[in-house]
């Protein structure tokens, strides 16, 4: 019998392990094991409380830190293949790209959080976020995946996170995921580039 390679707690072995000492299970034993497994798999996942709310977020890497954006704000995730840097813009404007005929502005969040540059690799993705008429791409060094974060498990940002951009952080989840406050971010007027020559 092969063992599954899962690492998550509560692997299949725990739920219907092969009895110790036997190398080959009898058909009868197999049935028992399978039934036990089926029962255990049919079990609803444990929940701390029924009323608890979960936030569905997309987690990604910026430098060495894990950040997350609520999926409600995300339109799509797009691989970063070609980028046109834009002169005469603030440093957080990473450049512009063409997504199916539309010009999209790419923001480099690392500039807001004083994170080191990693250089562009083929793991880089653009997370396209949208709120009303504001639509932009956020540069991610690497996508981790979708996570569900219980809302009440969200801790306030660390006191060491100060500065004007601390407002962009909604909270820190258990596994050290920094949840960005997309609503606030996308509504921030400071984000808008509106510059005249000589001003």
């Amino acid at each position: 019998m092969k063992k599954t390679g899962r690492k998550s707690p509560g692997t299949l072995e725990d739920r219907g392990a092969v009895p110790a000492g036997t190398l080959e299970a009898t058909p009868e034993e197999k049935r028992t094991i399978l039934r036990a497994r089926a029962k255990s798999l049919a079990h609803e996942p444990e929940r701390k409380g029924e009323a608890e709310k979960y936030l569905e977020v997309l987690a990604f890497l910026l430098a060495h830190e894990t950040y997350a954006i609520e999926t409600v704000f995300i339109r799509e995730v797009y691989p970063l293949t070609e980028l046109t840097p834009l002169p005469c813009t603030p440093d957080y404007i990473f450049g512009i790209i063409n997504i199916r005929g539309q010009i999209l502005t790419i923001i480099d969040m690392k500039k807001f959080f004083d994170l080191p540059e990693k250089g562009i690799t083929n793991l880089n993705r653009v997370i396209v976020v949208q709120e009303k008429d504001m639509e932009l791409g956020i540069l991610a060094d690497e996508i981790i995946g979708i996570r569900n974060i219980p809302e009440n498990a969200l801790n306030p940002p660390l006191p060491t996170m100060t500065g004007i951009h601390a407002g962009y952080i909604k909270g820190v989840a258990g596994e050290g995921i920094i949840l960005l406050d997309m609503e606030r971010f996308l509504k921030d007027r400071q984000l808008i580039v509106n510059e005249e020559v000589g001003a």
Partner: protein
Amino acid sequence: MAGKNDAFIKRLLSTFKVEADEHIKNITAGLIELEKEMEPQVKAGIIETVFREAHSLKGAARAVNRSDMETICQSLESVFSGLKRREIDLAPSLFDTLHRSVDMLNAITLSPPEAAVADPGQISRITEKLAKAALGETGEKQAIPNDQPVPRDYPLTSETETLPPGPEPPVRETDETARTQKKAMSTVRISMEKLDSLLRQSEEMLTLKLMADRHLEDQLDLAHLFGLWDKQWAKIYPIICEFRRLQEKSDKQSGKRTQDDIRFARLLEFGELTHDNMKILESRLAELRKRSDHDRYATGLMVDNLLGDVKQILMLPFSTLFESFPKLLRDLSRDQGKDVELSISGGEIEIDRRILEEMRTVFIHLLRNTIDHGIEKPEVRKKNGKPPRGMIQIIVSRSEGNRVEILLSDDGGGIDLGGLKEASLERGIVSPEEARKLTEQDVLSLVFQSGVSTSPIITDISGRGLGLTIVREKIEKLGGRVSVETDRHKGTTIRMNLPLTVSTFRGVLVTAAERPFIIPTTDVERTVRIKREEIRTVENRETLSLEGSTIPLVKLSAVLELSERKDESPVVTILILESQGKRIGFCVDEIRTEQEILIKGMSRPLSRVRNIAAATILGSGKVVPVLNVSDLVKSATTSAIRAAKPAAPQAGGEAAKQTILVVEDSITSRMLLKNILETSGYLVKTAVDGIDAISQLKTEKFNAVVSDVDMPRMNGFNLTEKIRGDKKLAELPVVLVTALGSREDRERGIDVGANAYIVKSSFDQSNLIETLRRLI
């Protein structure tokens, strides 16, 4: 005048026709729906709709004086109002009456206006029927509400009376009727939103064209590779022949081949086979190229035709823009105590809606200018032997090559060329030597310069000398031209030449600091390639001599704040760009090509980026920024000034700050003004009224005074007078900020010698700050 009115009525009627048609269709649809079995709620909804449609149609009919239709609609309305309150039932016989009345409405709509009154007998019969229905068949319920009385002119007759069978249209079947009928059928209403989306999508098709171009280019490159191979083959072929001859010779001599010989022969054979294959591929490629070329041509043609037609759809007559002008002019001229008449011709000429929208601001600026500076007051006009009423004319006419010419002329005082020259000298736009050499036309072109105004005072309407600059900028952006002609004391004519449609944008693809950029072709005056030694340095700035004039040179990469390695190539490529009368040469790495491009606006968060207007997508899919030439020229001049005087303003620090005296009795306004000015970097002292101000002015040095008008003890006018009367203070700039916006006050402001007069209601900080910057 009568002819114009007729034309207007004609237009109105055709609009009415379209509208009426729509209402009638909706009523008919509603009636048909009502005949079906359905839930009472749904039914009520439909009744409500039909009621509204009848009501709207009634209003429209009244607007065009079709009393016959109005009467029918009125009766229809009464019936539906009764149905709404469930006071009458929907009997099958009622439907007949209703349908018949709608048919009659339709017939009247389609009839020409001369046949306005359809058979009055028929109309009265149908309205009677309707009136009776509205009362309910039994007549016991009082179904008619007070606000919708049934026309009493029609006596109720017995119920048995019926209409003549079939709705006989009370229309003479003339040619014209047939035509209008057809016309009404072929017109549809589409929302602008949908049309815009259609235009956008058609414009996107340009990408196809660009892609086809790109593919053809790639194939040309391939063909070129074949050419190279051909040359190589030509070199190697004699060697192959040589070897073959040698082999044949040895074959004849010895008669048998060694293993090596056989292998060598196979190698030679394969070489020739490869050659043949290559030849086939080459000819196939040539064929493919031919087809691609044809496809490109066909695609281009189809896309251009489609785009042309879509643009045609988006054309609107000038009159849609001009409609609001008479009122605008009346209001403006009344404020100024002037009397003008506006005459417009050529309003029916159609032009791209997007151009028309841009032209709105242009016209408003120009009309304001004309009223403010051009047209004199009635008294002055009389003195000069002119009719007291000023005349402004707008003439639109078609000109050559799908363009339109617009003349805006007035019979006012004309432009004071002497004053214009002086103002330009004062603002440092021309040097005294230059001024002496200027021709009349040169002087005139100065009116378009930023900051030039002959107006003695700055007001909200004009005088800041920006109006005409904006006008020229806008018109040039649309691919148009503007010029001005003036005759002192006789009038001024502004001549504008515009394209009828927004032409497909063309751009020059250049590289700077190894990055590609697009510069709009219309902004490129010319391109030159010169030897590096030809660059001259004048006053520590690089310049280029071109046909006798000296043009400043800058590096495009430097203006765009890009770092670049030192370029030492012996030849320099320069684009000469012109904006607002300034010509500057921009050095680039290379000019790649000139091509059609599709402009893609940038959206938030990029509202406005310095030096960059938009972006475009090349055939390869690459995104390239499109540069904003007016910004580039501005950047080039400011950065050049900065370079010439390194950090001089900063060196002075606090001491260099200018001090402003704010005189205002209201504490709130005082705080507001102080705050606004301080944020803009001025030092601010305050005074509570004129007396206080005078005493402060005597003890301290100020760079300008910003004063309210209405104040206790000493008001703003008196303060200004006092300042002007004082020898030491006479030159001190005074800005009056006031809630009083009347003409008399403004004139009083001029009389007492204020430099600017800003009305509080339109008071935003940029206005004040800009005025101060100009004055100090």
